[in-house]
C-alpha cells in the first residue's frame, strides 16, 4: 500500500555520514575501543591460569605456587571489571548522541518535506522511518552492539590465546570455524523471510483487534460480532503459526550450533591428546585450550543469534541516512511585497493525468475580502483551496499573491503568510500550551489566552483542571472535535497570517458546538484575505462574496442577496436549507 517516497542512502554514503558524526567524539570512541580491547585481553587470563593450576597439580608443585595463578585471576577480574564498565559507558557516550542527532535530522527533513508530494504519497513511509527504523537502531544499540563487540573481542583474544599456548592448538581452534559457518549459512537465508512474516502477522492481528475494539458500537449496531471475533481468531491463529514456526527454525539453528560446538570440543581435545602424548604441550595447556573453547560457547552463540538484528539495523540506518542526507530547507521568509490580494488566473488541475478536476478557474480575492465557495462533493472546492494556499501547484494557469507568482515567493514565505485549516483535526499529545505555542513559540500565556478568547474557547479552557497545562491528545483530556477545531483556529490567530484558507474547517463539529465554531471561524478571518470552503450555508450568507462551483467550474458568483434574488442554483439550495 505505502509508496516509498523517501530516498535510501547507499552503504558507502551511510558509512561516510556515520564516520563524520563519530569523528566529533574522538575521546569517547578511543575510550570505548581501549575498554573493549582490555576486556578481551583480561578475559583469557583465567582459563590460562587454571591451566597452570592443572600443570602444578600434574607436576606435583607446592601449595604456595598456587598464589601466582590465583592472583592472576584476581588481577584480571579487577582490571576486566574496570575495563567493562569503561567500555560500555564510553560506547554509549559515543553512539547514543550520534543516534539522537540522526533521528533529529531525519524528523526535521521529514517535517519539511514538500507538502504536495506528501499529500500524494501519504505519510506511511515517513511514519515508518521516524518510528520503526529509529526503534530498530535504538534497540540494537542497547543490546546487540555491545554484545557483538564484547563477543568479537572474546573470540579474537581466545583465538590469540590458543595460538599463544601452541600453534597446533590454535590451528585446532580454527578447524572448529567451518562448523559455525555452515550453521550460519543454513540460518541466514531462512531467517529473513520468516522474521518478516512473523513481524507482519502480529501487526495484522493488532489491526483486527483494534478494528473490533475501537469500532465495537458499529459492529454491534450492524450485528457483525461473530465476523469480527472470527477475524481476530483468524489473524491470531496465523500469528501463532508464525511464532511457532520461527521458534522451530531457531531451535534447529540452535541444534546446528550445538553440533559445531561438539565438533570443536572434540577437535581440541583430540589435538590435546595427541600433543600431550607426543610431549609437545603440558596437560595444563591442553586443559586451558579446552576451557578457552568452552567459555566461547556463549559469546559465539550470542553473535550468531543477533546476526540478523545487526543486519536489519544496518538496513534501517541506510533508510535513516537517506532522509538525513536530504538537503536542508531554507527557513527564511520575506515580507509580502504589497496588500495580500490573491489571484487564480485561468487555473486548471488534474490530480491523475487525464482526469481534469478544474477548468479555467479565474478567482480574485481582494486584500481583506472574504469569499465563500459552495458546491457539491467533487465540484473542486478543496482543489481550489489547496491551490489558493500554495500547497498544490496547478497543472495549468498561475497563482499570484500580492502580485507575485507563488513559486517566486518561495515555500517559507507562503507558509508564513498563508494559513490553512482543513477538516482534518489533530490534537497533539502534550499540554494545551504545547498545542498552541507551535504556531508562535515565543507567545506569552497572556497572548495564548487572548487567542483562545478570540475563538470563544476561553470559557471551557478556563474550566479545565489545569488550564493551559492540561494534557490533551491521545492520553490526555478528551476534546470534542469542535474544541479541537477551535484550537486549530486559535493557532491561526497566534500565527497572524495575511491570508486564511478554511477548507470545511467547521464541518466535523456535528450539531454540538457548531455555532460557537462558526463564530470562531468568523473572528479568525476578520480583517484578513479569506477563502472559506463553506459547509453550512450560513457561512456563505455572511461572506462578502459567494462562489458556486460545479464540476470544476465557477457557475455563479455574487453576494448572498444577489444570488438568492437571481433564483439560480444557489437560491434553490438556500430555499431547501431555510425551509422557505
Amino acid at each position, binding site marked *: 500500500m505505502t509508496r516509498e517516497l523517501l530516498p535510501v542512502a547507499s552503504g558507502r554514503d551511510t558509512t561516510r555520514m556515520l564516520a563524520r558524526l563519530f569523528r566529533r567524539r574522538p575521546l569517547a570512541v578511543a575510550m570505548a575501543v581501549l575498554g573493549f580491547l582490555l576486556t578481551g585481553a583480561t578475559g583469557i587470563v583465567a582459563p590460562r591460569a587454571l591451566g597452570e593450576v592443572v600443570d602444578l597439580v600434574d607436576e606435583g608443585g607446592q601449595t604456595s605456587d598456587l598464589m601466582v595463578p590465583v592472583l592472576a585471576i584476581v588481577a584480571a577480574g579487577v582490571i576486566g571489571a574496570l575495563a567493562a564498565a569503561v567500555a560500555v559507558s564510553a560506547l554509549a557516550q559515543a553512539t*547514543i548522541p550520534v543516534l*539522537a542527532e540522526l533521528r533529529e535530522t531525519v524528523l526535521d527533513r521529514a517535517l519539511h518535506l514538500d507538502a504536495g508530494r*506528501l499529500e500524494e504519497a501519504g505519510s506511511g513511509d515517513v511514519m515508518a522511518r521516524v518510528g520503526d527504523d529509529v526503534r530498530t537502531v535504538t534497540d540494537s544499540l542497547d543490546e546487540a552492539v555491545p554484545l557483538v563487540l564484547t563477543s568479537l573481542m572474546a573470540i579474537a583474544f581466545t583465538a590469540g590465546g590458543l595460538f599463544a599456548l601452541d600453534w597446533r592448538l590454535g590451528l585446532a581452534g580454527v578447524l572448529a570455524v567451518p562448523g559455525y559457518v555452515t550453521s550460519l549459512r543454513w540460518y541466514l537465508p531462512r531467517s529473513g523471510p520468516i522474521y518478516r512474516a512473523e513481524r507482519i502477522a502480529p501487526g495484522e492481528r493488532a489491526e483486527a483487534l483494534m*478494528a473490533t475494539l475501537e469500532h465495537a458500537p458499529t459492529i454491534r449496531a*450492524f450485528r457483525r460480532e461473530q465476523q469480527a471475533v472470527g477475524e481476530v481468531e483468524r489473524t491470531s491463529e496465523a500469528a501463532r503459526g508464525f511464532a511457532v514456526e520461527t521458534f522451530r527454525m531457531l531451535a534447529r539453528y*540452535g541444534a546446528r550450533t550445538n553440533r559445531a560446538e561438539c565438533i570443536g570440543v572434540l577437535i581440541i581435545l583430540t589435538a590435546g591428546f595427541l600433543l600431550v602424548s607426543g610431549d609437545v604441550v603440558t596437560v595444563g595447556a591442553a586443559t586451558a585450550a579446552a576451557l578457552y573453547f568452552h567459555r566461547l560457547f556463549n559469546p559465539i552463540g550470542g553473535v550468531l543469534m543477533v546476526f540478523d538484528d545487526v543486519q536489519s539495523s544496518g538496513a534501517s540506518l541506510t533508510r535513516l541516512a537517506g532522509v538525513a542526507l536530504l538537503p536542508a530547507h531554507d*527557513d527564511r521568509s520575506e515580507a509580502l511585497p504589497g496588500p495580500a490580494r490573491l489571484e487564480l488566473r485561468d487555473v486548471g488541475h488534474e490530480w491523475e493525468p487525464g482526469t481534469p478536476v478544474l477548468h479555467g478557474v479565474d478567482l480574485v480575492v481582494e486584500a481583506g475580502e472574504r469569499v465563500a465557495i459552495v458546491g457539491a462533493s467533487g465540484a473542486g472546492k478543496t482543489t481550489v483551496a489547496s491551490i489558493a494556499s500554495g500547497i498544490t501547484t496547478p497543472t495549468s494557469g498561475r497563482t499570484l499573491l500580492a502580485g507575485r507568482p507563488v513559486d517566486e515567493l518561495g515555500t517559507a514565505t507562503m507558509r508564513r503568510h498563508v494559513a490553512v485549516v482543513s477538516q482534518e483535526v489533530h490534537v497533539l499529545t502534550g499540554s494545551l500550551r504545547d498545542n498552541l505555542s507551535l504556531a508562535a513559540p515565543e507567545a506569552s500565556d497572556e497572548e495564548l489566552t487572548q487567542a483562545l478568547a478570540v475563538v470563544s474557547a476561553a470559557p471551557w479552557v478556563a474550566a479545565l483542571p489545569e488550564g493551559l497545562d492540561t494534557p490533551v491528545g491521545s492520553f490526555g483530556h478528551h476534546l470534542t472535535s469542535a474544541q479541537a477545531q477551535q484550537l486549530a483556529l486559535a493557532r491561526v490567530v497566534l500565527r497572524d497570517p495575511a491570508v486564511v484558507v478554511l477548507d470545511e474547517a467547521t*464541518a*466535523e463539529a456535528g450539531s454540538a458546538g457548531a455555532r460557537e465554531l462558526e463564530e470562531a471561524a468568523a473572528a479568525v478571518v476578520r480583517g484578513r484575505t479569506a477563502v472559506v470552503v*463553506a459547509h453550512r450555508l450560513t457561512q456563505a450568507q455572511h461572506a462578502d462574496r459567494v462562489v458556486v462551483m460545479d464540476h470544476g467550474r465557477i457557475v455563479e458568483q455574487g453576494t448572498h442577496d444577489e444570488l438568492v434574488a437571481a433564483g439560480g442554483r444557489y437560491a434553490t439550495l438556500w430555499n431547501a436549507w431555510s425551509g422557505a
Partner: protein
Amino acid sequence: MTRNRRLVATGTPLIMVWQLCEALVPVMIGVTIDVGIETGRLGPFALACAGIVGVFLCLSYGYRFGALFLRRAEQDESHRLRVEVAEKAVQPVDDSRMAGEWLSLATADADKVSELVYQVAFTAASVTTVLVTAVYLARTDVTLALVVLFGLPVTVAITQLVSPAIARRTDREQAAIARVAGIAGDLIAGLRPLKGIGAETAASRRYREASRAARHSSIVTARSWGYMSGLTTLVSGLFLALVALLAGTRAINGELSLGELVAIVGLTQFLAEPIKLLGDLSAQFAASRASAQRLHGAFTAASHVLDGPERLPDAAPREVRLEAVTAGPLSDIDLTCSPGTLVAVTTDGPASADTIVALLDGTARPDRGTVRLGGIDLQDLARADRREALLVVPHAATPPEGTVRTAIDPDGRLDEAALDAVLTASAAHDVVEAHPDGLDHAVRIGGSSLSGGQRQRLTLARSLAADAPVLVLRDPTTAIDAVTEHQIATGLRTRRDTGRATLVVTSSPTLLAAADTVVWIREGRVVATGTHHDLQDDPAYREDVLR
C-alpha cells in the same frame, strides 16, 4: 495451565535433560582430560569423547523439542485468551475500559499469562539442576560443595543488588524513548494541519528537545549497565579465584583428581546461570500474576446485554414508540415513528439527542415510561428480534475494512440495481467514482483513508442497504455539504415511500425540511410537533436549528 497439560508435561522433563547436560559438558571435559589426555591411553580417551557426543546429543534434542513443546503450549494459550477477550469486548460492557486497555489485555496481558508455562518448566529444570549438581559436588568434596552452594547465591545476590536501580533507570529510559517515538508519530500524523500554519520548524525544535532528554537518560542507563557488567566481572572473577585456590590446594594434596578439579571449576562457572535464572523467574512470575488478575477482572466484568423472553409477532407493525418516557435529561417524552414515515427529532443540545438514541439501542433504560417496538416493551423483547427489526446507527459509525462494496453490503445481498439505488439515495456515487477501482477500491479500517463526508455517506449507504424495518440515524450528515445533503434528504424520502419507518435525530435544516414530522425537544421536553415549515415561525426554533 491445565488446558495445556500434555505439552507442558512432555516439555518440562526435556528441558531438565537439557540443563543437566549443559552442566555435564565441563564435567565430561574434565573426565576426558583425567582418563584420556593425562594417561595418554587411546581407548579411554575415545570412550570419553563418545560420552561428550552423547551429552551433546541429549542437550541438543532436549532443548529443541522441550522448548518447542512449551512454545506451542504458550502460543495456544495466548491465542485462546485473545479470542476470549475479543468475544468479551464486542459485548456492551461497562464503559470504563477504553479500546487501548482492551488491546493491552488481548496482547500484553494474554502473552504474560501464557508465559507461566515457561516459568513453571524452567523453574522445575533449574531447581533440579542445582540439586543434582549439589549432590555431585558433595560426593566429591563436602567443603568445596558448601563453598560453592553458599557462595554462588551470594555472588548472584551481590550483582542483583544494583539491578532494581538499573530496572528503574531502564524503565525511565524506555519511557523517554517511547515519548520521543510518540512525539515523532504524533507530529507526522498531524503533519498536514501543522504545515497549514507553517509550524514545521517549531515542531522540529520540540522533537529535538524531547530527543535530547531521552539521549541523556539513555546514556545514564547505559552507564549503569556498564557498572553492572563490571561488577559481575569482578565478583565472578574473585569467586573463581577462591574456588581455584581451594580446589587447587586439595588437588595438590592429592585429595582431588585432575579431572575433578576441572569439573568443579567448570561447574562453578556454569551454576551461576540456573541460580540467576531462578531469581529472574520469581520477578516474571509476579508480572504474570498481575496480568492474570487484570484478565480475570475483565472476564468477570458485568456486560448488560438487553434481552427478553417475548417474540415480535409477524403481524405487529414495525414502528417505535416512546410513551411518557423520562430518562436522563428527558422528561415525559412522547414520540412515534410509524411505517411509511420519516420523523425527525431536533434537540437544543447533544445530551437529549444522545439519550434518545441510547434508549432505542438498548444501552439506556427509561426511569419512567416505556419504549416499544411493534407494541412490545423493549425490555421484554428478545434480542434477536429487536436487532432484526430495528437498526440504530451510532453517529460515530465507521466503515469496516474491505472495499467500498463490502463497506456498503458486507454479505453481498444486493444486485447491481439495488446497489445503484442505495448509492443514489445516500449520494455516494461520487465516493465510488472518486477512484478508478470504483466499488472495489480498498477501504482501510475505520475508513481512515476516506474524508469525513465520504465516511458518513458510506455508513449511510450501509444503513440503507441493510433495509431494516425501522432505521434510526443520528446526525448522519454533519460532514456533508449543503448540496449533497439535499440529495440525501431526497434519498431518505424514497425509503419512507417503501413503507419503512425512519427516525433521524438531527439539527440540519435540510433533513428537517424533508421530514413528515419534526419533533422539537427543548430543555428535555417536547415543545412542539409539526413540519419544519410550520415550526419556522417560532424564533426559538430558528435559533435552535438555523445556525
